[in-house]
């Protein structure tokens, strides 16, 4: 993995490779582990994440499913209840609405409803986000919905290291874990650690230290925020960039410590503005360090419109570096 703070370009592996390495590692280490989802096998995964795994592990452990999101996600939950360690791939978050009932009403509640008798060690991965001109039904960023659900853990790896390491951490977690992989990151290159190690998923990461304002973000937007921070640096504004990494539970400590230092914060989130994860973080900052703030909090989110197909409109609908820079400047300028 190249240094945080710059979009890595000269490495030898991609984010896709990192996810694959994480899955492969889990399959090798734990015989209870298997991968299941639409086109994970023969096709190699719709984003080529699982390419080659079928040959290595066979069709029982790299299990192509019919188009039955509720059925196979529920089956993953059931298999976890039955002692397996399934990794279920829901092709994209866009289709996850069809299995949201299973995730909310079963994965997230069975432990509680059973008075703690059962755990559901299932990992559910899905691609998320816009930017590929896939239009209104294929461009959702619904992380905030999942982050609203008690009883599950929600991860959003933004780096190769996290993409690989979080998978293993998720597998050993006794509770359901949902992992969002931003579609724009799959081709991102870097290098993979030789030794695979689980990463701590409890903490947000400061990807760039700074003193003037805290930019809090996650997933695909991280790299836009880092680019914006570079641009801001040229204008003499020293931004700190926090990568949330885990969207549920949120690492308030890291966020608040940063905001207390910088006294200003900007939230960047590819979800639609109203009801965004950015809103939740703003609420927490106001609750926990209102008196430390020197300026109103601000956010850059997606416009409240189904994502349009044409590139210029899609770009305009999503958070972009200039808008982040502009919002940061306004936050700095606020008296």
């Amino acid at each position, binding site marked *: 993995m190249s240094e945080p703070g710059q979009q890595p370009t000269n490495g030898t592996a991609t984010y896709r490779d990192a996810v694959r390495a994480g899955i492969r590692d889990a399959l090798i280490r734990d015989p209870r582990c298997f991968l299941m989802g639409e086109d994970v096998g023969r096709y190699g995964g719709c984003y080529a994440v699982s390419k080659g795994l079928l040959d290595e592990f066979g069709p029982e452990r790299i299990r192509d499913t019919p188009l039955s999101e509720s059925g196979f996600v529920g089956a993953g939950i059931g298999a976890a209840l039955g002692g397996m360690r399934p990794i279920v791939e829901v092709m994209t978050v866009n289709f996850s609405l069809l299995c949201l009932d299973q995730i909310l009403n*079963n994965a997230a509640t069975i432990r509680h*409803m059973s008075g703690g008798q059962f755990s559901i060690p299932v990992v559910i991965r899905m691609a998320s986000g816009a930017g590929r001109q896939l239009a209104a039904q294929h461009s959702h960023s619904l992380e905030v919905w999942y982050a609203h659900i008690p009883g599950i853990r929600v991860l959003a790896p933004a780096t190769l290291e996290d993409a690989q390491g979080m998978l293993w951490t998720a597998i050993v977690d006794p509770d359901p874990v949902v992992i969002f992989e931003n579609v724009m990151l799959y081709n991102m290159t870097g290098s993979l650690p030789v030794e695979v190690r689980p990463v701590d998923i409890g903490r947000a990461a400061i990807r760039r230290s700074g003193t003037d304002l805290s930019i809090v973000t996650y997933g695909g937007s991280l790299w836009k925020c880092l680019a914006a921070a570079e641009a801001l640096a040229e204008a003499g504004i020293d931004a700190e960039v926090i990568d949330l990494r885990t969207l549920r539970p949120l690492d308030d400590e890291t966020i608040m410590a940063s905001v207390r230092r910088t006294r200003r914060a900007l939230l960047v989130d590819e979800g639609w503005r109203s009801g965004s994860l950015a809103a939740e973080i703003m609420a927490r900052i106001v609750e926990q360090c209102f008196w430390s703030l020197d300026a109103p909090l601000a956010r850059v989110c997606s416009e409240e419109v189904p994502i349009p197909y044409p590139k210029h409109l899609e770009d305009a609908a999503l958070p972009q570096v200039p808008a982040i820079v502009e919002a940061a400047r306004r936050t700095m300028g606020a008296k």
Partner: protein
Amino acid sequence: MTGATMDKPHLTRAHARELLHQMQRIRSFEEKCAELYTQEKIRGFLHLYIGQEAVAVGVMQALEPRDGIVATYREHGHALARGLDMGRVMAEMYGKQEGSSRGRGGSMHIFDAAGRFYGGNAIVGGGLPIAVGLGLAERMRASGAVCVAFFGEGAAAEGEFHESLNLAALWRLPVLFVCENNLYAMGTALRLSESEPEIWRKAASYRIAAEAVNGMDVVAVEAAARRAVHSLREGEGPFFIECRTYRFRAHSMFDAQLYRQKAEVEEWKKRCPIRMFGDWAIAAGLLHPDEIEAIGHEVEAEVAAAVRFAEAGTWEPVADLRRDVMTPGEAS
């Protein structure tokens, strides 16, 4: 009830007694529950199984302890027939921490790890994919264990029914689908919910072996379940049984039953699985009326003890509210 199905050679006196006893346990337990509901000891939704006892009791005969069970919100019968302790089930109805789900679940969410009893699912159809997954786990481990999913005929209209049957058949999983066709989904009659009201015929769409049985006849249900489970253990893939039954009571305690005629209910009550089986067993010389009376006493005592246990149970402290959301020791 046909004499034919009852004339099973393996129906020993002990087994006949056991069947009657189990059905009576459910009946008496639930009659008590209805009473406790009006006393506001039990709250929320309470869905009684009265009238359908032959299904849970019949099917459970075919299962071993290693087999898994997924049921619905109408699951007291399944829980008791599976052998869960009646006191703990009753305590769960009260919401006491001595309950089978430590009180968190209530009537609709009875769970028991030891009994491999996976709830208690209150989303219609929601348990079916879970059963498929449990079957998948058994199949991948080649454990020989099976999983049974109980659900109503109303659930057959849900998309998850379709997805689950296809998955189970495609992967040849050891899942027994038991549809308890009691003719109504809340107030919606079968003819208003299914263009093909012979539910068992739907199994053909997935190439799943299926049969319909008289769900008021505990022996017929047991026989069908044994055939089915045998086939499951042989690795023949899933099996589907439609049990034709009826609920004698309202859907839940809130239901005014505007949607069905009293006469229809009375007609079905004549086929009461408990009375029918008892009468037959006496006529067949398998049970003596005294034995039946003894069962009644035994069950009354068990129910009374269960109520005492529940009454004596304790409320979980409010301070523990956030317990059991995530596994202890993990961040939440």
